[in-house]
């Protein structure tokens, strides 16, 4: 592509620097208003009414008691349950009705007063029972669905060429998103116009979703999400049953309504990462090439949802076969969860990688390098593995099984990742410069907690020669224009080009205003260090404030949009983990994690590093702690809370070193997903290296670690 004035600058005093979050003070002081904080005059509080049973027929629903409860203004069914097949609830937490009342307490009391008669039906929550045919037939069309098989090369020849063959069964568990802020909405109607404050990863999508479901024009819907406490994919695809019920209750009650879910509802009904398991047989040649990879995989994404994942993950295998089964269970449906499929694919692939490497006495880093795709700007694993190994002290790694005396064993593991993270339009941005020197950058994106406002301020400030604090980012409102959902690590790459284009155009307009006063050609001017000045003669110039005085009463405005060439796609990453394992208690402690990760042009270095920290911690939770535990008899979730649904606290988090590998020439690439792919496998492999036993199933509970130790060495 030809050079353009919109191209990212070769040098910048702002882009890629360490800029504190521009909204940090608002967040820590409570000035930042999340959906939960929105209160409207005369607002009601709503509560969902849900099935306590994993599978049941709703025989009758009597809402009359609820309508007579104190403070109740409206009670509505989610749908008509009067006839088959709409009268079945398919998981614990399945939505049935909702109630709005004057206080939260009244809403809860009223919800509990609704009389629902159920015919409890046989349920299926245990995947193995579905696979071995001992489960009741629950799902029309079968409990188990074949996924798309994949074949390449010649498996028989591949195994014939193998010096060694390894077989094993690997699995990862269902985990839930567990956002700090629960799902929720505040809805307010004015006639047939709806304003909705909603904790969502996509305000544009939410507008479309509300409008189509409620039968009103999108033009009548305004959606706001100024701040949100995490989504991880669970708030990406729709406003959910609770969002629609909030709007319907507000309409019926003719009053604003707030409906926020509680933690139990979050665990049961707002998505999860599906389980993923595989039975793998793989062969390796004496010189370290994977000759064959034969996998049968399965997983559950809940009631009628699939559970696919890439297998083998990332490595090149010429001869391979893969079959897959999606198992439907009476549990809440999966939703995209940070790097959908990749953490599962990574774990199911990476464990056998070390087993194969051990078979031929090859170092795991060297073995990986032999089986990775050829190096390219979007395939940098070889370089990162070598560089990471040197920094991490990989040469101090002992062979499988720590031989030092005492119960505390130390080990290291490594794992690689990839993700797309590309950008796309339309993603318009609008820039205003007013005569008082204020710069507004306005766009209809949202910040799911990654620091989007800071990114907006950094790019704008860079283009205008200002400091990020001098820019006023305005986001989180559909009145600001359309934008893509914040999912799949696409936000930064989608919005960054338009921001720069709008800022550069606005600056061009400003240059035209001040050039006559300076007696120079506008094209000779640049913005730098808070001044507008002639590029090679800074004395011919003026301060930003003085320059803006030339703007006049009508602010400068300029529009930008996504442009090809300013963003790119596909990242590479590698992670190293070190653990200690207490072999007398089964307790695993992660002591160090090293992250090597690229994301193209780094816009905001602190938020990029922050994505890596968060990704590592999330994956550590996946490795050690998180597990949706269902009672095997009733199918009900036993830990729908944050007491027994375990998440790392401060003392469980290791030292994390992040090395962002700059690739400025590639333009902006998203970074949300990739850092959470690899850590779990690296930890499990570090445990294997420490103990000498292979951990093939997550999470790595003390019970599993001690059980594996008891069963024998790798």
């Amino acid at each position: 592509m030809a050079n353009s004035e919109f191209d990212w600058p070769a040098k910048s005093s702002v882009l890629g620097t360490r800029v504190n979050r521009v909204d940090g003070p608002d967040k820590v002081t409570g000035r930042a208003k999340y959906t939960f904080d929105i209160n409207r005059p005369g607002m009601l509080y709503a509560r969902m009414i849900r099935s306590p049973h994993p599978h049941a027929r709703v025989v009758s629903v009597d809402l009359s008691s609820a309508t007579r409860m104190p403070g109740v203004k409206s009670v509505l069914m989610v749908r008509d349950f009067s006839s088959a097949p709409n009268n079945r609830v398919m998981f614990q937490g399945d939505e049935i009705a909702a109630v709005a009342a004057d206080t939260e307490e009244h809403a809860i009391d009223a919800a509990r007063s609704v009389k629902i008669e159920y015919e409890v039906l046989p349920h299926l929550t245990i995947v193995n029972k579905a696979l071995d045919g001992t489960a009741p037939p629950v799902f029309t069309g079968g409990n188990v669905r074949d996924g798309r098989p994949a074949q390449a090369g010649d498996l028989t020849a591949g195994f014939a060429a193998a010096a060694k063959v390894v077989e094993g069964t690997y699995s990862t568990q269902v985990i839930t998103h567990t956002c700090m802020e629960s799902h929720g909405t505040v809805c307010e109607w004015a006639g047939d116009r709806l304003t909705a404050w909603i904790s969502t990863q996509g305000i544009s999508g939410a507008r479309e979703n509300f409008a189509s479901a409620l039968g009103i024009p999108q033009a009548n819907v305004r959606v706001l999400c100024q701040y949100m406490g995490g989504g991880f994919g669970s708030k990406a695809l729709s406003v959910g049953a609770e969002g629609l019920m909030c709007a319907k209750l507000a309409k019926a009650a003719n009053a604003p309504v707030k409906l926020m879910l509680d933690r139990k509802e979050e665990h049961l009904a707002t998505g999860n990462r599906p389980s993923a398991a595989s039975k793998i047989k793989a062969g390796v040649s004496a010189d370290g090439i994977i000759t064959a990879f034969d996998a049968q995989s399965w997983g559950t994404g809940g009631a009628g949802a699939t559970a696919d994942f890439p297998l083998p993950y990332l490595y090149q295998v010429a001869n391979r076969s893969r079959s897959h089964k999606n198992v439907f269970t009476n549990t809440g449906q999966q939703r995209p969860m940070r790097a959908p499929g990749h953490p599962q694919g990574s774990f199911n692939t990476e464990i056998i990688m070390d087993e194969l490497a051990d078979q031929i006495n090859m170092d795991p880093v060297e073995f990986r390098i032999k089986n990775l795709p050829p190096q390219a700007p979007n395939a940098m694993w070889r370089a990162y593995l070598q560089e990471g190994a040197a920094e991490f002290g990989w040469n101090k790694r002992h062979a499988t099984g720590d031989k030092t005396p005492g119960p505390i064993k130390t080990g290291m593991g490594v794992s690689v990742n990839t993700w797309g993270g590309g950008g796309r339009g339309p993603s318009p941005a609008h820039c205003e410069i007013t005569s008082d020197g204020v710069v507004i950058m306005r766009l209809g994106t949202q910040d799911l907690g990654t620091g989007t406002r800071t990114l907006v301020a950094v790019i704008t400030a860079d283009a205008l020669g200002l400091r990020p604090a001098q820019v006023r980012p305005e986001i989180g409102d559909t009145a600001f224009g359309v934008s893509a959902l914040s999912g799949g690590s696409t936000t930064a790459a989608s919005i960054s080009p338009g921001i720069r284009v709008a800022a550069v155009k606005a600056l061009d307009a400003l240059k035209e205003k001040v050039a006559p006063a300076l007696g120079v050609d506008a094209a000779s001017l640049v913005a730098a260090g808070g001044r507008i000045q002639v590029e090679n003669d800074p004395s011919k110039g003026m301060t930003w404030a003085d320059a803006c005085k030339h703007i006049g009463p009508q602010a400068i405005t300029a529009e930008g949009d996504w442009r090809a060439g300013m963003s790119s796609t596909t990242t590479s990453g590698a992670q190293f983990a070190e653990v200690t394992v207490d072999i007398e208690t089964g307790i695993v402690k992660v002591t160090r994690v090293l992250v090597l990760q690229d994301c193209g042009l780094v816009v905001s270095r602190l938020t990029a590093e922050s994505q890596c920290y968060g990704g590592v911690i999330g994956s550590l939770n996946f490795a050690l702690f998180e597990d949706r535990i269902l009672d095997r008899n009733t199918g009900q979730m036993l830990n729908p809370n944050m007491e027994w649904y375990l998440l790392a606290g401060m003392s469980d988090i290791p030292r994390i070193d992040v090395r962002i590998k700059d690739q400025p020439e590639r333009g902006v690439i998203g970074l949300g997903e990739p850092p959470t792919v690899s850590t779990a496998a690296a930890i499990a492999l570090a445990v294997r290296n420490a103990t000498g036993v292979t951990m093939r199933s997550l999470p790595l509970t003390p019970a599993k670690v001690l059980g594996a130790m008891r069963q024998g060495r790798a």
Partner: protein
Amino acid sequence: MKAFAYVNPTNEKDAIAALSPQLEQAMPLGGGQDLLARMKDYVTQPDRIVNVKSALESTVTPSGGGLRIGAAMKMVDVAEHAEIRRMYPAIGAAAIEVGTPQIRNQATVGGNLNQRPRCWYYRNEEFVCFKKGGDRCFSPAGENQFHAILGGGPSFIVHPSSLAVPMLAYGATFRLAGPKGERLVPAADYFTLPRQSLRMENVLAPDELLTHVILPAPGNVKSGHYEVRYKASHDWPIAFATVLISFNGSTVQSAKVVMGAVAPIPWRSPEAEQALVGKTITEETAAAAAEAAIRNARPLSQNAYKVDVAKTAVKRAILRAAGIQTA
């Protein structure tokens, strides 16, 4: 939660008068770290809450060579109390491991000792188990990875109190006050197995308050406390142990071994104590005593690993008591 009346008495007598002989009709409120969560989850639905924070003492006073601790004392104050830490280091060690700083700033001694089981069947409204007046324990045929390996049946909860274990080891007595006056109950008699009383975990009547913990003079004992937790931050122990040893030179003259989170009550192990007497503490003698401590363990379908964990906790507590470096 269900609507309730709130009573705020300023002395012990008024607080007791506000209670009720009927189970869970009126509940004393200390730091609320257990009760409020149960109320929010509809596990316990009292008609009346009696705030006992102003009615009960929250201080430590010397008593017959030992200490007398008010039940309203906060966990943070126990953990930081110089005399408690000097005279009963295992109690200080247990207190500092409880919950989080926020929880320790609220939670009280009385609440820690009398909190209800953390069993996930008990804590979920859907399961009407023995502890809620139901007719079964769901754990033996269900998910029991954190349940009892000793003393279980017909309920398999583990006792949730961290303080109860070292207090039992140090020979604490609890002062209970009720409408008929006060009684002093040794910790060893206070906690009750499910086969003795299925619904509740101790002898405290619904209209009684635990007002004080009375600790005798500790004597010349060395203590070791060891807790094994899945997470380092904010988690319940898988198993833990307090060990007190009085030495004659380097030989064990007598020992107390009490385990926590393994049984429906703080579990004293005479077998382990016996195994230690007359021995010099080494890795081997400690391991042998730890083996004795879990010899009678009867794990359920998913908690056999707890036997290993409990054994490790006892062994390491013994080694700590002997001043031997351990993991």
